[in-house]
């Protein structure tokens, strides 16, 4: 299965993804720049991504912790999510996201 990630420079990358992995981990595994400073604890919001409109509604909803983290992001958009909170599954094969400015290391 694959995900498509647009980096900070606007280049799109198609990445091989494994089920059960966090989208943040997949992005990091392929050496795309993503800060993710808390390592997936939903405590820093530095793995912020914009989810493609066609995909946003298909993701499981945000936890209250995730909403708290997203709340004060300067670059938050209606389609913002934390990549560490999205677990890869068959249903998300083809997921498209764009790295938000605040995720730059």
């Amino acid at each position, binding site marked *: 299965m694959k995900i498509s990630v647009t980096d900070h420079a606007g280049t799109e990358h198609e990445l091989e993804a494994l089920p059960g992995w966090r989208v943040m981990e997949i992005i990091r595994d392929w050496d795309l720049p993503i800060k993710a*400073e*808390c390592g997936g*604890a939903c405590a*820093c*919001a530095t793995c912020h991504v914009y989810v493609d409109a066609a995909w946003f509604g298909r993701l499981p909803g945000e936890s*209250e*912790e995730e909403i708290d983290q997203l709340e*004060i992001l300067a670059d938050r958009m209606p389609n913002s999510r934390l990549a560490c909170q999205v677990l890869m599954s068959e249903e998300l094969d083809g997921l498209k996201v764009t790295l938000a400015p605040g995720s730059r290391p």
Partner: protein
Amino acid sequence: MTKLHQETDAIIIGAGPCGLFAVFELGLLGLNAHLIDILDKPGGQCAELYPEKPIYDIPAWPVITGQDLTDRLMEQIAPFSPTFHLGEMAESLVKTSEGLWRITTDVGTVIEAPVVVIAAGGGSFVPKKPTLDNIDAYEGESVFYAVRRIEAFRGKRVVIAGGGDSALDWTLNLQPVAARVTLVHHRDGFRAAPHSVARMKELAAEGAIDFVVGKLNALAGAAPQLESVSVATAKGDEVLIADRFLAFFGLTMKLGPIADFGLNLSENLIPVDTESFQTSVPGIFAIGDINVYPGKLKLILSGFHEAALMSQAAFQICRPGERLRFQYTTSSTQLQRRLKVA
């Protein structure tokens, strides 16, 4: 302003797991250390960002939380009585005419030592700011991200924003001191300790504080003097009269003044040699997540190993001419005396 002037063998910048374990490894070799950390408690990222998160790859601990790991390290280094300078940021690093490294912190503490160990992880913790226009212009006068002195809020109308422990704690602590405290959070649910939340709701029910569910809109007043904070609520926009605004939205990391220490940097990381974990500058070492070398793994485990090798090289600098004898803690009475168990 020079607050104090102290000498030691090693100054460790960063009191996260690697900085703490460096105290231990240096201590075994008879070297003492001062630690500087911008947080007001030891543990670094582990204690600040994920105190409750289980860690599974610490040797001999099948599972341990970030806070427990910190507590265990503090217990382990206690025999070496390190000096902590918490809530301070290492601001400048210069070499003295005696060949020592002199570090000055942002509150004026001056420490000198032959060895500096940078164990700063991802850098300095800085507060996350809410995205409000012109907020910078109010900072230091009306807008704060921490309370350093409660007295500065006496008799003031204070608006506090956030839903975690800091926001709740300061709502409760400032309530008796301030003229009025208003807590703003975007939802009626909190990440803070339940008893703090319950107490806050009691105070709100008694009319002793105000609690507003809403989203921050804007600050108003002739900067730097704040006059009000406007909030979008379900019932429409509300203007909260305020002299002071406190925002508690957690912390994030920036490299900070370390970038100006004159060390070679590679994408905000400090290259080191893998024999001693020394940087491009003799006497300055970098261990843990902030360093980089071929094959680097960003694991707490790696930082511990790096601390041990760093200490061997630091000894040569701190005790020139003395022979370093490799000893095991299991058998050496000298090490056991240092550990205060013999």
